[in-house]
């Protein structure tokens, strides 16, 4: 047994005569000496990946977080707790709470880590269990197993390190790089090292090699360095002698204390045998595979610099707005639709022309305000026609803003004043689909005592149904639902151009009688129904916009082709 000092601040081990903690520089005078574990055993523990110093990534990140938070703590004022002391809702709030200082849970972890065996969660408990088994009777075998396991880790890591031999080969290069590291080394990396109890300079070169790939590489590399230390007989916690001599200056500047190195070999490289459970093996394998996965060669793509994206958008915005404005405000209207009328449009036209006077129509509003301009453009002439035929219109909305949009659309054609319009309200069909709503009227029994609470869809009494929607899925839900409730009533659609291709099958299958979408169908409807000019010179602007997009796509493709060609030539 050897006496060691446990730092009251951070829990790190220190040699018995140390005055300050080598980890956190806390004053150790007056601390009681505690009996600690056998040094040889200690070495064995530290040697393996499953050491007891919380060296898994999670704990390192915990430590990192703590350091960050401590740093911010000084600047932050305490924030009042909200009634529900719960996770944060805004993006910011959480950070603010993080900044309040070391969070409670981290405190608890750290406190429990020093007090309880089971405080670090399941995996750590398993690790502790494995450690306990290490303390058992066959140290040689344990070492053997650990070594083979670490060999598995080291292979790809070593491979990765070897990818950059030039950097380490030249001393000059090393020095230059070292300086660069000092400059570029991010705070978090230093914090990790502080948390790890490593000297900052000790593994600079290693971090350069590993750090760019991932933290896990770096971790695996740490294992390598620890093993090296052990092999030369140094105490694992201490600075490698060679490295120390190379970095004396920086060590001094970092105000690190010189720590005496125990010259007696604390560790004999006798491979131990480890007996671990299947579950522990699985966890170890999982960790191994995770580290191997991190090290696996990946097709790393160079991040494309998008700094010119804003400028490009500005350029295209100017181009589009200017050309649209010129088309809208200068020049007259364009002619009628050129090209064949598509079958679903023809179906819609015949539906509306066959509609009798004073028919009863169910009008479904299933679109968002964003698409109102497009839907209104097409549906205005239709609604004008319906109103002129004295149709009785029942309104249902299934979009959040449906009731508002009803009023906007009907208000524009001054139809709100008529008595023939009935509002049936909002149906949350989007929540789960109207599946259940449709079934209620078709059932032949009821649950005893169940109140008439739900809003049931009407199951008939209409001559026709018109759905105004911006999404194919909304239309689909309604078609499926209404077909169950009112199988014989014809359904027609006014939809957006983007959802139209997905809805053609419903016309093919005969589930809908007709469908119109987009400005071109609006033009046809205007001319067929002889309503007021709404489309006007919008069509010219629309055509200009579409042609512009086609041209830009082609130019972009040619440009990309040329660039590729040039790059190929240069290569």
């Amino acid at each position, binding site marked *: 047994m050897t006496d060691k000092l446990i730092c009251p601040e951070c829990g790190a081990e220190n040699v018995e005569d140390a005055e300050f903690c080598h980890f956190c520089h806390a004053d150790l005078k007056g601390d009681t000496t505690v009996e600690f574990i056998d040094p040889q055993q200690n070495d064995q523990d530290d040697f393996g990946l499953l050491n007891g110093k919380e060296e898994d990534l999670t704990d390192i990140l915990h430590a990192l977080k703590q350091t960050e938070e401590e740093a911010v703590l000084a600047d932050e004022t305490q924030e009042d707790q909200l009634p529900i002391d719960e996770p944060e809702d805004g993006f910011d709030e959480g950070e603010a709470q993080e900044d309040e200082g070391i969070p409670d849970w981290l405190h608890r972890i750290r406190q429990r880590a020093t007090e309880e065996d089971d405080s670090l969660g399941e995996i750590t408990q398993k690790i502790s269990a494995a450690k306990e088994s290490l303390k058992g009777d066959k140290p040689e075998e344990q070492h053997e197993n650990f070594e083979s396991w670490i060999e598995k880790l080291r292979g790809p890591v070593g491979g990765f390190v070897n990818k950059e031999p030039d950097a380490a080969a030249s001393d000059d290069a090393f020095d230059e790089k070292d300086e660069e590291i000092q400059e570029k080394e991010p705070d978090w990396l230093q914090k990790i090292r502080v948390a790890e109890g490593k000297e900052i300079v000790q593994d600079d070169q290693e971090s350069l090699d590993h750090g760019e790939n991932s933290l896990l590489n770096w971790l695996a590399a740490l294992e390598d360095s620890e093993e090296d230390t052990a092999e030369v007989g140094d105490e694992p916690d201490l600075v490698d002698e060679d490295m120390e001599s190379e970095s004396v200056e920086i060590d001094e500047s970092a105000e690190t204390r010189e720590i005496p190195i125990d010259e007696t070999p604390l560790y004999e490289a006798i491979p131990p045998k480890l007996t671990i459970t299947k579950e522990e093996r699985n966890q170890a394998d999982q960790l191994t595979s995770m580290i191997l996965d991190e090290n696996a060669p990946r097709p790393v793509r160079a991040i494309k610099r998008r700094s010119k994206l804003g400028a490009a958008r500005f350029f295209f915005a100017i181009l589009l707005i200017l050309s649209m404005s010129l088309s809208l405000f200068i020049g007259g209207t364009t002619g009628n639709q050129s090209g064949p009328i598509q079958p679903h449009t023809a179906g819609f036209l015949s539906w509306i022309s066959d509609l009798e006077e004073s028919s009863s129509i169910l009008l479904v509003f299933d679109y968002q305000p964003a698409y109102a301009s497009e839907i209104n453009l097409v549906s205005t002439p239709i609604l004008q026609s319906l109103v002129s035929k004295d149709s009785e219109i029942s309104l249902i909305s299934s979009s959040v803003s449906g009731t508002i949009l009803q009023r906007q659309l009907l208000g524009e054609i001054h139809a709100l004043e008529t008595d023939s319009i009935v509002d049936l309200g909002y149906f949350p069909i989007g929540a789960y689909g109207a599946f259940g709503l449709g079934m209620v009227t078709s059932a032949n029994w009821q649950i005893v005592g169940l*109140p008439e609470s739900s809003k049931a869809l009407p199951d008939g009494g209409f001559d026709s149904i018109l759905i105004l929607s911006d999404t194919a899925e909304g239309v689909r839900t309604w078609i499926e639902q209404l077909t169950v409730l009112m199988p014989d009533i014809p359904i027609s659609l006014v939809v957006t151009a*983007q959802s139209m291709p997905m809805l053609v099958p419903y016309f093919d299958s005969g589930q809908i009688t007709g469908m119109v979408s987009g400005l071109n169908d609006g033009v046809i409807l205007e001319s067929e129904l002889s309503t007021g000019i709404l489309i006007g010179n919008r069509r010219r602007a629309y055509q200009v916009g579409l042609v512009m997009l086609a041209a830009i796509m082609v130019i972009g493709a040619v440009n990309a082709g040329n660039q590729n060609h040039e790059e190929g030539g240069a290569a």
Partner: protein
Amino acid sequence: MTFSYEILWIVFSFLLTLMVLSYLLGDNIFFRFASHLFIGVMAGYVVLLISNQILWPYLVRPIVNGTLPGVLWLGIPVVLIFMLVLSQFKGLTWIGSLPLAYMAGLAAAIAVGGAVFGTLLPQSRAIVDSFDPAMWYAVPNQTWFRILDAVLMLVGTVGTLSYFHFGRKRKSMTEEDLEKRPAILEGLSKVGQVFIGISLGAVFAGVFSSSLLALIDRLLFIGQFINNLFRSF
């Protein structure tokens, strides 16, 4: 210019339009102002909508006007709602599992039912129906188009489905092989890629058309506003 209620709203709309369109110049304070105003209004609106159109007709009205058995029935959703609300408090999260299991079970069953009876069967049936010879000869001059249409539909759909095959080629000799499907499906997936590209291209044109109409609408609104402004002076 006569100041009236309508004009107030038109000016308000005009300012909001300009603020949002200013985003084309980059993120700025005006856009952020309009955004936050919009979110606030929508949040308020949704609260009112849910209270008015869901909680009132589905819960409150039946409790107020209903009979005792009816109110007892409603005890179940009330308990679930209570648990859902309670689970938002620290330390009581576990209570939320029950109402969430209810929602998840409902969503999963609707997903399964909707996928099979709403998508897989109807879409497959539509492809099969296009091979009905009666449809091919329905219109005299369109027989070959109908046959071509049906064959393309079948080949394209099979190709598209093959493109999504998850499994990989058994004997993977090279790095590239790791990305490949089994041989036959790999060949079909090339066809599928083309059809997926065609579909996405057409839908892209539709998406742009919709957004272009929105832009035209806003430009017309701005133009008319400025025109009316100048006329009024």
